[in-house]
């Protein structure tokens, strides 16, 4: 019963806003090429979901986001752990990281177009750059946060480098790594869609630009809603995963 009231509360305000939008578009802005009533957009969404191009575009966006995340977060994780475990390396690289980190990833879109042309590699490279820095910083913090006594135990047991890494450092870093993963996934999706809107003629972002340019506002709104759903689903999924890992490791948040 509680759950039902909470669910109703959650959709009440959006439902009212959508109804208001519907009324405004049908009366004041009827016949507009720029905006469509939400009901028409919903029908366009249902229609399009049954067709292949919708899923091709979604698959392209998700593939490039995950590919870029794999490279960017992977490199960020390794380097971050390295820098976090060795204070000297951290001191050496601090200035370079602070100077390179504020460059907006979208500023590299033209460079990526020059190098890779259009397509998956260009988008994945921008996503990799964008996800590298936050994961680097978070991994560094996670590695620095490893309990020093655990490292002393490793030294006392004369563990090899790989054993130390696998058995002590990575498990100690795991909760923060999942937070970094959640952040990275969110950034990856946002950057993918942004690159597609700005330049890359593939994927969800480009489908939105096409819908806008071919004066199909119902499709545009359908894509916008779909992006929101994807983002929310990915966020919820990774949050659930993070909580599950934290529970397994006995951390109460």
């Amino acid at each position, binding site marked *: 019963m509680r759950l039902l009231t909470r669910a109703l509360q959650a959709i009440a305000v959006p439902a009212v806003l959508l109804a208001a939008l519907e009324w405004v578009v049908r009366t004041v802005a009827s016949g507009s090429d720029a905006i469509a009533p939400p009901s028409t957009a919903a029908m366009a969404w249902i229609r399009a979901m049954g067709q292949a191009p919708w899923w091709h575009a979604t698959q392209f966006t998700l593939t490039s986001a995950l590919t870029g995340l794999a490279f960017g977060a992977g490199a960020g994780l390794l380097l971050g752990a390295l820098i976090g475990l060795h204070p000297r390396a951290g001191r050496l690289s601090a200035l370079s990281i602070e100077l390179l980190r504020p460059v907006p990833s979208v500023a590299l879109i033209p460079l990526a177009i020059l190098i890779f042309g259009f397509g998956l590699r260009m988008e994945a490279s921008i996503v990799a750059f964008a996800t590298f820095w936050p994961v680097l910083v978070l991994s560094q913090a996670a590695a620095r946060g490893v309990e020093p006594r655990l490292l002393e135990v490793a030294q006392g047991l004369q563990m090899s480098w790989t054993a130390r890494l696998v058995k002590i450092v990575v498990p100690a870093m795991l909760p923060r790594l999942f937070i970094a993963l959640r952040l990275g996934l969110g950034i990856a999706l946002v950057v993918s869609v942004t690159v597609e809107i700005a330049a890359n003629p593939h994927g969800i972002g480009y489908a939105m630009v096409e819908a*806008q340019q071919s004066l199909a506002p119902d499709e545009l709104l359908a894509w916008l809603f779909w992006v929101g759903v994807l983002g929310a689903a990915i966020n919820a999924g990774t949050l659930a995963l993070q909580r599950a890992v934290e529970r397994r490791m006995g951390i109460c948040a």
Partner: protein
Amino acid sequence: MTSLRDGARALEPGALLAALLALWWVASHAGWANRAFLPTPEAVLQSLADGLNFAGPGRGELASFTGHTLRRMVTGWVLASMAGIALGSIIGLSKRARAWLQPMLEFMRPLPASAVLPLAIALFGLSDGAVLCVVVFGAIWPALLSTVQGVASVDPCLREVAAALQLRHRAFVLRIALPHALPDILAGMKLSLTASLILSVVGEMIASQPGLGQAILLAARAFRAGELFAGVVLLGALGLAGNALLALVQRRLLKWQSALLF
């Protein structure tokens, strides 16, 4: 002898940077990568000098483009921060408002703000207003959500203190709730600044508005890698300056917080 070691230690951070710059110089001069996308450092410096009109017969274009992007970024950020903090305080202070609105706000949080750019262009055309709209829309969420978080997490004891002192609602907000939420608000404003820079650049690229975003896109199309890198350097400088200023403000305003944690 310790002063020598301290001196060497102080130079360490610069060492890696110098090494990276040297690597760039060697890579570009030796032609390890195509000159079309890896210009020499001197070419980039030349483009920067020309563009900022320090030397040579440049037209100072980069300076004006930087000004446009900066104006867009700051205007959007200020508007978004004000709206976000105002709305966030109202929503955060009321438990009922949070119950009704929080799920919708959480749904909007992961939405890529650039996804509304085609909609804004459809509604407002290829104009400065469309870009500014998208910048404000994108930058408002971090400020709003962090204000809601900060204000909602006011300790119930503090509320009881306010009730015991018979503080009026406005006094409670200004003297207790907002200062308590200040760390969260400032963190949210930092994220808003990053978002507003990114959205300004993307908006300029798509809506063909004068600014650094359009400048680097045109430089790429004309294969002028020096100008491209110069534009990227300037954008990085904008981001760095913004972050640094905000960090300074953060340190100043939150001095009372660290003082309490003797």
